[in-house]
């Protein structure tokens, strides 16, 4: 579903992401973790077609992002870390707009259940400008879910949500993956990544320092079999920062 080959992103002399390669299969959840400034958000923005890579290739659902950006973007749904909906559109109007832009067939009957799933029903006719941060986060997720994209990109998806909503969204993400969507989640919540993700990609100073299943990451970090992702993460990012990926 997503193939990233030798992705590099430079800002002048500064290299934010260097020679990053990974792939995500349909039905798989990939956790993207790393310290602040590791290049997670830059990588996600490159995959979403917002930033132009300085080098490398990104293929989304078989479409090369550099060659056919419109077709490639049609396959992905991005949920940014701090969503900004259109102030003067209601919750339902956002979903209608997205359905129109992505040519979603029979979107109207799906709006109600989706709002129900994300606990937005009461807010359906409210302008986005009146929503709390958590509600805006849910709206961004609804905008991505309404069209069942092949690839879901989450940048810190649970920020601002209450415990009940966190549990609900976590279940929703897992369900989408079980239905065949490829999911990439960037998060500092290592516990969430450990529970939800099939594979983990650890970035450090713009480079991949570990990529694989939790067992493979543990092995790469020379951690014990029952070590948590947190322990493996610190072992990798504090000691083996410049080592090649496991």
């Amino acid at each position, binding site marked *: 579903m997503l193939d990233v080959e030798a992705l590099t992103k430079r800002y002048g002399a500064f290299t934010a992401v260097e020679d990053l390669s990974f792939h995500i299969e349909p039905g798989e959840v990939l956790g993207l973790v790393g310290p602040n400034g590791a290049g997670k958000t830059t990588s996600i923005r490159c995959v*979403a077609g*917002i930033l132009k890579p300085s080098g490398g290739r990104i293929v989304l659902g078989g479409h090369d992002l550099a060659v056919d950006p419109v077709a490639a*973007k049609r396959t992905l749904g991005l949920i940014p870390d701090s969503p900004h909906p259109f102030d*003067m559109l209601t919750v339902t109007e956002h979903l209608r707009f997205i359905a129109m*832009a*992505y040519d979603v067939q029979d979107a109207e009957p799906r709006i109600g259940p989706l709002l129900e799933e994300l606990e937005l029903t009461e807010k359906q006719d409210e*302008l986005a400008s009146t929503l709390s941060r958590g509600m805006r986060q849910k709206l961004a997720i609804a*905008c991505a879910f309404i069209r069942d994209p092949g690839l879901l990109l989450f940048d810190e998806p649970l920020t601002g949500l209450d415990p009940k909503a966190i549990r609900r969204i976590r279940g929703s993400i897992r369900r989408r993956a079980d239905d065949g969507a490829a999911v990439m989640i960037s998060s500092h919540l290592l516990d969430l990544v450990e529970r939800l993700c099939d594979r983990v990609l650890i970035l450090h100073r713009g480079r991949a320092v570990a990529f694989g299943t939790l067992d493979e990451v543990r092995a790469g970090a020379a951690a014990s079999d029952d070590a948590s992702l947190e322990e493996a993460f610190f072992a990798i990012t504090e000691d083996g920062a410049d080592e090649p990926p496991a």
Partner: protein
Amino acid sequence: MSARALRYLLLTRFKNRVRAFVGGLLRPKNILAVLMGVGLILLLLVDVSPGGTMTIEMRYAVITSLFGFLLLITIVSSLGQEGMAFSAADLDLLFPGPFKRRHLLLYWFVPQYLMSIIMALFWMLMFGGRRLPHPGWFLFACFLYQVVTVHLAAFSAHLGILLAEKFFSRLKPAITVVTTVLLLGLLGVAVLIFSDSGGVPGKLMPIAESPVVQVLFFPATAAADLGIVDGVDRWIALAKLLGAAAIAFGLVMLVNVGFIEASFHASRKVHAKVKDMKRGVLSAKKRHKGGSARAPRGWRGPWAILWRDVLTLRRQLRTLIGGLLMIVILIAIAAGREGQDDLVQLAIIYLAMFPLWLTPPIGFRIDAPYLATYRMLPISAVGRAAGMGLCSVLVPWLLQLLVIVALVIGGLMSPVYGIAALIGFFAIGATFVLVEGLFLATGGGIRRTDFGGNIIRMMVQTLAIMPGILIVAAGYYALRSMAGAIFLAAAAQGAVVWGLLYWVGARLDSCDLRLEAE
């Protein structure tokens, strides 16, 4: 599909905006804001345009010069922007979406066209278009001129993206300087024109009619032509404007550069600036190199708050200084005109305090989020109010001091009169600042976007200086000395300030902190 979705987005947003506006009219303070707005427009209709005695040729020169200036500023500043600014929602929902480049560009243009209609009306009023031989054509010309500038701004931003990839970082400081100089120049020329000083319109005539200006700034000259000429010349002018709009539009559509990424970065810069402006703070330099300041000896209690304000100002001085100097120079020019009436002179200097209050770097408005912190400090209520307000009183007052010193040195004002004026201005400034503090403490609308609330606040501020004004009038009648009357009035106004200080202090200690701290 993407075009249909963008059309839906624009129309729905417009519809909801109108609905929200109409709904908002049910609130009395919003009605007040609308009435004030309409009143202002009517006032503009009556007369703000350059004097009625101006000949058609002079008016042509003024229109050509200011339009030409604006065209140049638009091109240069857009070049430095390195991309077109979109909203945060656009970045989140449109940039990662399946939208074609040309559709995103058209989506960006549509609201600008609507704004062009409003701007056309504004130019019509400002330039006294109804005094031209063909006002209807001039209004249409103003709209077309605005469309040309919108297209040129987009093209220039695209050019900026192209240059940024090569060698632009070295040119950027120069572009900032050129833009600032052009803006200050435009402001200076506009002040001279609209205050009828120095016969500027007459001096602009040969410049506006020179072949260089006619060729280089042809959209500006064509716009002015449309209000004056008829017959074949009218169609030539119209063709020039339409041609300029079409060529700039074509260039934007054809020049395919890294538009998405550049606009993403440019937009984020603009959002950061807007966020600062909404809070009323100036953008501080990202990397502070000055180290940490030592607290002055003996500055305790309320002085700690004042010290924080002084540091804040000092660290934004580079951003502030150009604007401050410009205010001083413009006010000094306007106040120092020969044969100026004393009272008019005072009124002009009095106005010096307003530009700073429109974008204050310090003060109650800026301190709203810190109120909880200040309340925890072991400072008396009065001390807290004084500490929070003093710096905002002092800054505009120092500007007035500079202007008055310049006028006294130039022999245009007597020293005694100057000292009286300074005392009076301090009392007025303190009153205004403290009323703002009172509004903060009562949640009565201190946010920049709350126009109705701000108008009510301004009315209360005006009412609060009434004792001083009445005593000036009575004192002048009794003493036959303006300086003496001002001394008397300042004393009375000082009593008002003293009362306000206690009132604001008490309110700040008891108000609901959630009101403004969000």
